[in-house]
């Protein structure tokens, strides 16, 4: 555990869904979630499928709302509570501080893989040339064939799309990285490449919070596991027991 202040600090987070289309059915997910992630640490969210790992990760990205609790993100010498931050703050934090790799690549029409990755680098301040160089480097390391670089990923295989996704997520060199199953749909060789890239990030001081189903990946990267079952709401806890 580092002595410096953690980059992510979750305090008493509670999340539920209200399904108005099902007569207002309330689905509680988690409550009382508290943990932190420091620079250079890789923390995994563990627990059975459906327990709420993805929901917590999305809440930390600002993609999901929370019912209660705080999500502190450290920004230089101050910290921002993402749970109640203004949309513009969230966007600014995402641009500068928080990178996110989800399981799926949301495809923008007409933009080639290389440009998608370069755009991500540009957004966090790189020049056009730097961004292109970064993008080319990443895609090469991830073994994405060069002939695909100028093509929009909508026709790529799942594994190829995922590699573009990872390259994009890592291109911003954010201080905080959120990873949701980064090696899903990748074969062992490409998995290993991704692990290398993430490890480099770790060593560069990035705070990493992720969901990793692959045991080998966990072995290679994860320092600590936060067991989300401990925060599951009572109903789910009974079901899991």
């Amino acid at each position, binding site marked *: 555990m580092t002595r410096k202040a953690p980059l992510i600090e979750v305090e008493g987070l509670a999340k539920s869904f209200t399904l*108005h*289309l099902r007569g207002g059915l309330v689905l509680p997910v988690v409550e009382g979630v508290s943990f932190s992630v420091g620079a250079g640490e890789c923390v995994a969210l563990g627990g059975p499928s459906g327990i709420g790992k993805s929901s917590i990760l999305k809440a930390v990205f600002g*993609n999901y709302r929370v019912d209660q609790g705080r999500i502190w993100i450290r920004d230089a010498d101050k910290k921002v509570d993402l749970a109640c931050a203004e*949309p*513009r*703050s969230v966007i*600014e934090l995402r641009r500068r501080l928080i990178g996110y790799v989800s399981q799926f690549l949301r495809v*923008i*029409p007409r933009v080639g893989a290389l440009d998608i990755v370069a755009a991500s680098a540009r957004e966090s301040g790189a020049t056009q040339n730097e961004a292109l160089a970064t993008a080319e480097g990443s895609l090469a390391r991830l073994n994405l064939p060069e002939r695909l670089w100028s093509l929009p990923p909508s026709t790529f295989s799942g594994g190829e799309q995922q590699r573009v996704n990872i390259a994009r997520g890592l291109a911003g060199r954010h201080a905080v990285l959120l990873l949701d199953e980064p090696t899903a749909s990748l074969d062992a060789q490409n998995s290993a490449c991704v692990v290398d890239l993430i490890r480099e990030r770790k060593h560069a001081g990035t705070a990493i919070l992720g969901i990793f189903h692959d045991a080998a990946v966990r072995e290679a990267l994860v320092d600590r596991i936060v067991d989300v079952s401990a925060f599951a709401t009572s109903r789910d806890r009974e079901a899991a027991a």
Partner: protein
Amino acid sequence: MNTNDAPLLVAQGVTKYYGERLACRDVSFEIHPGEVIAVVGESGSGKSTLLALLSQRLELTAGRVSYRQNGHLRDLCELSEAERRRLQRTDWGFVHQDPREGLRMNVSAGANVGERLMATGWRHYGRIRDTARDWLARVEIDDKRIDDPPRSFSGGMRQRLQIAKNLVTEPRLVFMDEPTGGLDVSVQARLLDLVRALVADLGLAAIIVTHDLAVARLLSHRILVMKDGEVIESGLTDRVLDDPSEAYTQLLVSSVLAA
């Protein structure tokens, strides 16, 4: 986007009644430089009325719209007609759903793009034409068509021309009313990509009315969901679309057909 920037446009309690009939009630929000806001809703939700009210094309029944010029916010109802026209022609853009409403159909593409320049005092034919050429290139219209009237253009080309015509004076705020409405899907994709790139490159603020949630997701940072003349939910676009809190928003989101 600098979070310390002062807001560019401020809407407070914007309301419009047609006699007894409510079109739009009590809409309040701010937009900052470089921000894109999508206003979504179904037909009759009041979103197009809201856009007309904000852009000064319709008079408010109640409320206020203020715009920042030269460092301070001005209540737009205080503008003279001359000031309003100048604003709409230089610092603002308005892209109509039907490009015919935003273009002179029987005047060449180059003249269409150059019109705002000429209206603001440009008097050098060569420079006007060169600037028009640049903009046609940016919206991917072949240079050879510069002297053709938009009557001879396809729908997608007309829309791209309308965008060029609006952006030539480098406005800070652009209003768009269903910019991809009525276009073929492949044409829509091209247009959306163009809009996305231009907005990012030019640091434009934009308010985009659309019924298409995919357009909102692709282009906007924030979203306002309207129903029966009121904003029922608003916030970060991906949050509202991925974790909608209101019943109507959940209905809208779940109704979208996946391809």
